[in-house]
């Protein structure tokens, strides 16, 4: 270490904790500050569409950061994390949805819940906690698995919860959307949440827990021989990532003002995974870059789709081009940069 000649010899514990704060603060700030600058620029343009797109992108940052906590550190590709977004979104709706309409959408809510007036921030916290708690319970059983079996089991979990929520009419309005969630998720709220998610992910990553799980990811047998309990470490990451993904679901619901079970399904699974892989599967920086990159790419293509005036002519791509071009660009990135846009890099981390 370069900074080994410093006053910490006098108080090693204090110095170590200072060092540790630096190890969290530097990479977090290196991700959060550029996001803040981007948001300020967008706010200054005053374009509501741009603001809305950035807000959505930041919500995806939260979701993908949640994925990254588990996938990035454990190496297990989870097809099931959207489950936690689903749980979070509905749990928040139970507490905050639509005033007197709450009982019309969700007639079987217990009275105390149907009439509760939970402050929005607290509701989000409780909802994300529920998602984290469900992750913990599921993880107790599922974290014994690794590799493909784990991926498939997690996909199956998504199926189970999707089907259950679709048929739990009295609490979820079945397949119908619940409309009228308070739309408090502005650009700044989304930025704040993204900052929190980045901070949680960084805290986890630099902690001894993150290190031990990465050891499991690299070589499970060697990690166990080194005294690491693989199950515990996976479970810790799974729970935290369930919490963060749950938070992402809450935000998405309160961004649109409406939620339905079908929103939290294979499309979102694909999109969030694609963001993570395009950015860099094993890096939080990759998660953030991937989420922003895919969001920006979608919008750029759409600009063409809506038409660009060149002189008196309108250049316009036919409707439906966006998804096709998006898929081709994603494939090209996977082919030409299989390690993702940033690879293993973590900004703000000294090596």
């Amino acid at each position, binding site marked *: 270490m370069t900074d080994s000649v410093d006053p910490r010899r006098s108080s090693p514990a204090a110095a*170590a904790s200072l060092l540790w704060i630096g190890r969290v603060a530097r990479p977090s700030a290196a991700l959060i500050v550029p996001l803040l600058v981007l948001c300020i620029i967008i706010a200054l343009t005053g374009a509501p569409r741009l603001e809305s797109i950035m807000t959505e992108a930041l919500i995806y940052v939260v979701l993908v950061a949640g994925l990254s906590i588990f996938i990035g550190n454990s190496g297990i590709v989870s097809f099931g994390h959207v489950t936690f977004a689903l749980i979070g979104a509905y749990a928040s709706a139970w507490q905050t949805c639509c005033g007197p309409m709450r009982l019309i959408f969700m007639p079987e809510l217990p009275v105390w819940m149907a009439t509760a007036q939970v402050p929005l921030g607290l509701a989000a916290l409780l909802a994300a906690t529920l998602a984290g708690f469900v992750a913990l319970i599921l993880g107790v059983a599922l974290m014994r698995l690794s590799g493909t079996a784990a991926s498939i089991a997690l996909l199956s979990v998504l199926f189970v919860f999707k089907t259950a929520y679709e048929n739990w009419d009295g609490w979820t309005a079945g397949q119908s959307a619940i409309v009228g969630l308070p739309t408090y998720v502005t650009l700044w709220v989304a930025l704040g949440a993204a900052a929190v998610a980045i901070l949680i992910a960084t805290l986890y990553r630099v902690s001894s827990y993150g290190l031990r799980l*990465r*050891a499991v990811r690299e070589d499970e*047998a*060697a990690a166990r*021989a*080194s*005294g*690491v*309990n693989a199950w515990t470490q996976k479970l810790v990451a799974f729970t935290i990532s369930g919490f963060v993904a749950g938070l992402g679901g809450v935000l998405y619901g309160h961004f649109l003002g409406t939620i339905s079970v079908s929103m939290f399904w294979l499309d979102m699974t694909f999109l969030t995974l694609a963001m993570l892989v395009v950015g860099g599967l094993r890096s939080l920086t990759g998660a953030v870059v991937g989420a922003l990159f895919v969001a920006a790419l979608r919008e750029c293509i759409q600009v063409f789709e809506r038409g660009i005036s060149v002189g008196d002519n309108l250049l316009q791509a036919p409707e439906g081009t966006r998804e096709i071009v998006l898929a081709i660009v994603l494939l090209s990135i996977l082919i030409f940069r299989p390690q993702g846009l940033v690879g293993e890099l973590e900004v703000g981390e000294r090596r």
Partner: protein
Amino acid sequence: MSARLTTQSVTVRFHGLTALEDVSISLDQGEILGLLGPNGAGKTTLVNVLSGFTRPSGGTVKVNEIDLTRARPDVLARRGIVRTFQSVRLFQRMTVRENVQVPVFAHHAGSVEGEQAAQRALEFVGLAEESDRIAGSLPYTQERLVGIARALALEPKFLMLDEPAAGMNDVEGAQLVELIARIPAQYGCGVLLIEHNMPVVMAVCERLHVLRGGRTLASGPREEIRRNPDVIESYLGGH
């Protein structure tokens, strides 16, 4: 208090094949025991049993009087029964320091003493300078040293080294012997050394245990084994 790791009549069978039969060994803290035997003799299987990766079909593993036969690898490791791997198995995409920190954190959860244990292990194997390199980029010999440092970072009571000198040239092998010889003094642990390289084994082990076909062929002090006709015939004779 000095501890003793023992196996009593350990037997391992896979699908009707017997990998180990009725093997009893003991290892004291502070000594180096050499485990010999031709390929397929069951040496690695025995290490797998001792480190919890393989559950024996019969027999027991004990430290003093405590039965650890069914303990998981990570539990054994935290209790000071630590191994290395024939194929090293480093955490490839992590730095050398992180590789050595993993067992430390598993044990001490990030305390300052833990950091120091990691540093001490790296210094012991002479890799303190390389601690910020990515493990996967190290040359082969250094990889093996990191593997040993990673095991030592747990401050083991018993350390099992599975062919640590494999693939090294004579000079490197000699340096390794010197290093291994210092382990009991430095860490106060017992070392079980699996090694094909006879000079290495003979240089550092006072006691040897020889396996053949999953059974104990001979066991005893170095000089005695060197003179054992069975051993000479079946193993040493080949050289």
